[in-house]
């Protein structure tokens, strides 16, 4: 077998790929589910924290800043491992899926909160004053005037951060989640052939290229009409 053939046999072995396609496809489904849950919960919690922070209650804001800085500082893998192996010691058993979901949700929440907050503070004070001077309440002003403007400027950084953190679902493989990477690694052990990993890489591309393209579309869609 020549060098190129050996390369093809190891990384593009169609027979191995075909055998383990169902396993990796199942992992694909799990990754999609995990990613969706992380994105929905992380972005919603991040927005909720940013809105809470805008009320300007000092003690509350210290708490928010502490939590946000904590989850921005810790590597996601450390949080996953801590939750998965640490919580049972406290009498709470969590599945690998739950530990991965919760960890990445908290990380996305923390980064998203900072991005939303930056967006809210970037809206000029005059917008608040104009809206309040017409009798709109604080919450109406936030919801109808400030957030629509803040969200538009946050879309590019938010999209980037969301993609980066969602890719962290691969870390679930460490705590036994059979998502794309976990499934591919199992397949590789069974078949003793890394082609299964190639299959996993392709699965990631199929999943994330549309997400990246969607992010780009959202950015153009929400650009201000000029």
């Amino acid at each position, binding site marked *: 077998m020549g060098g190129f053939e050996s390369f093809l046999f190891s990384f593009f072995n169609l027979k191995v790929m075909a055998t383990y396609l169902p396993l990796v496809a199942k992992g694909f489904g799990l990754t999609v589910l995990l990613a969706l849950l992380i994105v929905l919960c992380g972005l919603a919690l991040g927005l909720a924290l940013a809105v809470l922070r805008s009320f300007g209650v000092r003690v509350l804001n210290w708490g928010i800043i502490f939590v946000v800085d904590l989850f921005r500082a810790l590597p996601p893998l450390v949080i996953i491992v801590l939750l998965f192996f640490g919580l049972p010691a406290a009498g709470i058993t969590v599945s690998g899926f739950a530990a991965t979901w919760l960890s990445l949700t908290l990380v996305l929440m923390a980064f998203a909160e900072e991005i939303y907050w930056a967006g809210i503070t970037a809206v000029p004070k*005059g917008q608040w004053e104009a809206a*309040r001077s017409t009798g709109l*309440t604080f919450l109406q002003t936030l919801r109808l005037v400030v957030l629509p403007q803040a969200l*538009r400027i946050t879309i590019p950084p938010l999209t980037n951060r969301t993609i980066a953190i969602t890719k962290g679902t691969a870390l679930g493989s460490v705590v036994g989640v059979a998502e794309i990477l976990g499934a591919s690694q199992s397949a590789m052990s069974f078949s003793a052939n890394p082609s299964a990993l190639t299959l996993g890489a392709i699965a990631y591309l199929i999943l994330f290229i549309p997400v990246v393209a969607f992010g780009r579309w959202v950015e153009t869609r929400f650009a201000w*009409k000029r």
Partner: protein
Amino acid sequence: MPTTPPPIIDARGLWKRFGNLAVLKGVDLSVAERELVFIIGPSGSGKSTLLRCLNRLEEPDDGSIQVDGIELLDPKTDINAVRQRIGMVFQSFNLYPHMTARQNVMLALRKVLGKGKAEASEIAARALDRVGLGERMEHYPAQLSGGQQQRVAIARAIALEPRVMLFDEPTSALDPELVGGVLNVMRELRQDGMTMVVVSHEMAFAKAAADRVVFMADGEKLEEGPPAQIFGEPQHERTRAFIRQIDRH
């Protein structure tokens, strides 16, 4: 002698400090119905702060402000309800950039006054017509000139049918050729009997349109009177110096 009606705005002894700096030092201001009061003075004199206290965008440290008989500084007062009666126009227009001119005017009509969509749209159209922008209703702020934006901002305020309008340097951010259009709208409001308090450097407009001119310096009201008196025979040395400065330009 006819009894004078109670003033629409009656502010007494207003104090405002920013840190150690006293910006308002016990200022009184009373404005009668249909009156146009002009507030002039050097920068830093507290005139904008005074204006911003009148709808509580700035919270005075001491004093009392009655607007239409309602005490603004009473913690029990629903400030959002009172603010409907006080229109405000800002130096930097502050239109909502994500809404068309019409939507800018409609927002408070719908969310504060609770009007239906069709009615709010109708009222907004009329208000924009009144400021000469009937043709530009579906434009976004970025598609309008500064003067047009300021007129939309005026429409946004008058659509709520306020009892009094506050203008905070409404023409200071405008190119000279756009000032006239905004002043014309203000002149028409005046003719329609709107009560107005204006902080501005448009002295020609003050001379022609104001009922009373208030001169402020260092957080105090130094003198007030009809424009002919303030511009013609100012009593106070500071006023004389200020008028001389302005006239040179």
